[in-house]
């Protein structure tokens, strides 16, 4: 069985992003870029499934310019067998990413797609569900546990009220949440080894996917700052303040 893992290049989660003065976006000049943290969890899960003998190959895929090869190499260093760059110079909307990844799925005969539940830049949380819809296959989003059993997967999902379990037939798309696992650290020899692993580039046009989308992205603005608060001296004052404001 082949597993496909989507990887997005995003601003590192430790970076405080700033909106550009002209509102055209956020400042990413010289900023550290990383693999989307949720995608690392997806990849870790894929590697564990392969290591348990339930998959033969783990392929990482990313859509973007040549800069995404950095993140694909990170995926290879973590342990993916090979990488595919879907090359495009244009920012893609989620539906186009879903269409492109689905073309890769069809070409490779992938049976399980693992994606992060959302990217920490756009916070859209759409691509996995869209892939499942276009593929007419099951989706199991926000997974905190994935158990494979033959042609089926039992997936525990983190929902607002607790943990929901669904059983899906493969092929299926699973989006992963934080609790699923703790991604491994990449060691230096793995980085060296990753340089020799195959990284294929295929253009969006070759996959037959158009750069199009129904959303027009307008201007960015910083969030409204919170109003300046007050300092109190002790617990009694704090409690008094909370009671005065009707909060306790």
């Amino acid at each position, binding site marked *: 069985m082949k597993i496909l893992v989507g990887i997005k290049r995003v601003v590192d989660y430790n970076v405080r992003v700033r909106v550009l003065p002209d509102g055209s976006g956020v400042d990413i000049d010289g900023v550290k870029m990383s693999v989307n943290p949720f995608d690392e969890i997806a990849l870790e899960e894929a590697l564990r499934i392969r290591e348990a003998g339930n998959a033969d190959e783990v392929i990482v895929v990313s859509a973007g310019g040549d800069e995404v090869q950095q993140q694909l190499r990170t995926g290879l260093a973590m342990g993916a067998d090979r990488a595919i760059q879907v090359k495009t110079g244009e920012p893609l909307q989620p539906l186009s990413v879903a269409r492109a990844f689905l073309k890769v799925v069809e070409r490779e005969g992938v049976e399980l797609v693992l994606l992060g539940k959302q990217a920490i830049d756009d916070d859209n949380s*759409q691509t996995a569900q869209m892939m499942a819809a276009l593929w007419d296959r*099951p989706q199991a989003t926000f997974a905190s546990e994935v158990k494979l059993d033959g042609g089926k997967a039992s997936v525990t999902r983190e929902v607002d009220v*607790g943990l929901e379990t669904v059983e899906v037939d493969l092929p299926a798309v699973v989006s992963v949440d934080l609790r699923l696992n703790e991604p491994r650290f990449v060691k230096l020899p793995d980085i060296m080894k990753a340089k020799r692993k195959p990284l294929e580039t295929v253009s969006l046009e070759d996959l037959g996917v158009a750069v199009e989308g*129904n959303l027009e992205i307008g201007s960015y603005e910083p969030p409204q700052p919170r109003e300046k608060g007050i300092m109190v001296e002790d617990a009694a004052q704090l409690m008094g303040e909370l009671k005065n404001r009707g909060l306790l």
Partner: protein
Amino acid sequence: MNTILIIAEHDGRELNAATAKTLSCAGEIGGTIDIAVMGHGVAEVAAQAAALDGVSRVVTVDAEHLAKPLAANWATETVALAGDYSHVIGPSTTFGRDLMPRIAALLGANQVSDIMAVSGPRTFKRPVYAGNAIVEVTVAEGSKVVATARTASWKATGGGGAAAIESRPAVAGPAEHTRYVGLEIEGGERPDLQSAARVVAGGRALASEEQFALIYDFADKIGAGVGGTRAAVDAGYCPNDMQVGQTGKIIAPDLYFAFGISGAIQHVTGIKDAGTIVAVNKDPEAPIFEVADIGLVGDLFTVIPELESLLG
């Protein structure tokens, strides 16, 4: 003229409050607003939806295989209803975030996730980078608007409505590839972190899993949910699912207590929409005081017992 369809979230008995919040977002967009109530045996939930203020019509789709909100089944039925509408909107809860993008893809549209403000009938503001930036997004003419309403940004509409209830037959049978197994409700009596009106959270200063019990005790005394920082989770003081912040849960309780939390950006982005932030920290320079509404420089190990005794 906008025609808006809201997808109701419910557990088979009660309409989730997120539905009324989504309704107030729809009200801001303007137009006729219908609510779709899918499920099995939904008469009671449909009546609750019909009583919300500002609803024109409630449309029920009742079938055995719709009893649980499996996205594959609910998306098919929603698409069948969507022809009459310009906008299809759900809440940005895990329910809506699971279902709505599947609907959007079937309708050939990208979704507008987490509407926090309405600038026009097709133009919305939404948070990106965990709320560190706000972007305005316009949906092109000729495309349906498929969106989720960010529940932390909208107040629930009131009651007093009396909308007509219509029923429609399901257009498809169950998706054979997906089976609902069960739901385990977490946290016992403690309120769910994501929707709790009060949250008490602890950071690295708690110093051990044993001492984190102080946080649980205080939370239970005031009926609050419990959260932790990434540092506290990484150190093993509290479980992963309690992590509040950019890579954890983004929450907006009315009252938030940050005990021994320094206020790393990662964490603060998860609480920025809280009503009132209370911070207790030994370090007067801690960045958490920059966002706190009420700050107290002090040792949480003495402050928490004092607060508890003041509660009586």
